[in-house]
């Protein structure tokens, strides 16, 4: 019992004074994060702000230049099955003859050597994951024939296969039309609330995710601000981050960030 309470009080992500330099450029400077289990964090910021870089650090794919990073109490390492990751939407080629369920299956054993034999247990795990993203009907369709939204659901299913405690989604809503966007947002909400999975979503536009977002991490100019949406997405906070005048306009129940250098 004691170890259980210990586990839930250890933050899922604990970052202190993170500095990341790449090719002589400082991407991230003095980033501090403490993210608890079951939180849904939206990561915002302009292109090149370091959002994908932060993910790479959390995944153990990139070594920080300075600072300490702890994911689920441990330093980041590659191949951590407790983290599910769906990078920016890739084009899965039209000629690619792999079925949706085969691609999802990679999340389970794609990194193991050998040709692998299909097992009933694996098939049922894949079926479960597909059902969770409402993808059972296209399980056997070649991925190249799926629409953008369906491919996105598939990739999230792949990320969920190992029952991760942390889910990192990079631009899951890119290139989706409104109804498909809502499907993905509903999926994220379900995963976060029902499964108590910590979710970090990188996006350009927070508006579709406002309903599920607990806190916002805004990255700009190498710096970051973490807090409630109405605290972070304000003219004052963002002007400080960018180092130049920024205004946040609220219209039609949506937030718009306006600035000279964004």
């Amino acid at each position, binding site marked *: 019992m004691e170890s259980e309470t210990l586990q839930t009080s250890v933050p899922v992500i604990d970052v202190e004074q993170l500095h990341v330099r790449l090719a002589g450029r400082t991407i991230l400077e003095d980033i501090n994060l403490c993210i608890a289990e079951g939180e849904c964090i939206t990561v915002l910021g302009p*292109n090149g702000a370091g959002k994908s870089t932060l993910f790479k650090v959390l995944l153990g*794919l990139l070594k920080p230049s300075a600072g300490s990073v702890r994911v689920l109490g441990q330093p980041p390492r590659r191949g951590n099955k407790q983290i599910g990751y769906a990078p920016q939407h890739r084009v899965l080629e039209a000629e690619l*003859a*792999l079925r949706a369920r*085969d691609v999802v299956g990679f999340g389970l054993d794609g990194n*193991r050597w050998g040709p692998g034999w299909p097992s009933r247990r694996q098939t049922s795990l894949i079926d479960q994951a597909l059902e969770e993203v409402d993808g059972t*009907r296209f399980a056997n369709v070649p991925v190249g024939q*799926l629409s953008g939204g369906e491919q996105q659901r598939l*990739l999230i299913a792949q990320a969920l296969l190992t029952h991760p405690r942390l889910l990192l989604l990079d631009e899951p809503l890119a290139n989706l039309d409104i109804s498909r966007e809502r499907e993905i947002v509903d999926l994220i909400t379900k995963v976060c609330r029902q499964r108590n999975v910590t979710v970090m979503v990188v996006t350009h536009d927070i508006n579709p995710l406002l309903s599920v977002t607990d806190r916002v991490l805004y990255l700009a100019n190498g710096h970051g601000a973490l807090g409630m949406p109405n605290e972070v997405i304000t003219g004052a906070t963002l002007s400080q981050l960018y180092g130049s005048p920024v205004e946040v306009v609220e219209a039609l129940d949506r937030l718009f960030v306006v600035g000279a250098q964004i």
Partner: protein
Amino acid sequence: MFDALHYTYIQNALLAGSLVAVVAALVGYFLVIRGLTFAGHAMSHIGFAGATGALLLGVDPVFGLLVFTIGAGIGIGRLGSNVRQRDIVIGIMMTLTLGLGSMFISLYHSYAEQAYSILIGQVLGISQTDVLVTAIFSVAVMSVILILFRPLLFCSIDPEVAEARGVPVERLSVLFLVLVAITVSMSVQFVGILLIFTLLVGPVATAMRIFQRPLWVIVCAMFLGLSSIWASIIVAANGDWPVSFYITAISFGVYLLVRVLSPLWIGQRNEQCPSVLFTPADTLQPERGPKQAATTQVSGSLQEVSH
């Protein structure tokens, strides 16, 4: 016609040819899905300089072939995945080595015939030692690919997630190209450097029009490759034309046939999942997915560069 089967040299050709067809199908499948068909083709041309250089030095051309193709494979593996840039560099290297090869040939006129057989292939002249060597290499390459099967397939489809899952993507890339180099060197004795595409890519391309799952595609490609090699050797043994001509002709003929007929079953496949293709929201923006995603992908890689 089948009397030819009694001759040792024909049996050797069939044995070695079968081994090569099987390996080429397996390696060729990954070549196609990784978008490396041009690289594979170029590697054979680059190998040409190695082969002719080896002739110049009085060494078995296969060694020169192996050294140069493996070197090319490692180099290409490290060029990274920007296809356009990579293919330009490969093209430049290829033409340089072709020029080098032709210079080597011009230096020794007596080796012109051997050079010719390197270009076109001469399977009917191989010895039992050659068969043994081919067998050893084939088994080695196939075993390695089988061990690498899942992670290689994974990082061919999705290198980013594969890397996040712990797959050593770059090392696998280079290792795979070394395996391609060995396969190319083995195949050159059959179809020659100019026609390597026909063994590596032809059967796989045809099989992909028939089947969907990797295992089925590979097995089908093996079958197609085996049939074309057997047919070619037997027919060529009874005539004057080179085996490689028959291999390419049969390969092309079968591909054309399957391609022309494939709408028959591909249409059926689509009908089985109508909801996938015709949901109203999707049809509103039919082209949006792939094209715009391609733009996202481009800007994604530009970001990597600027990072």
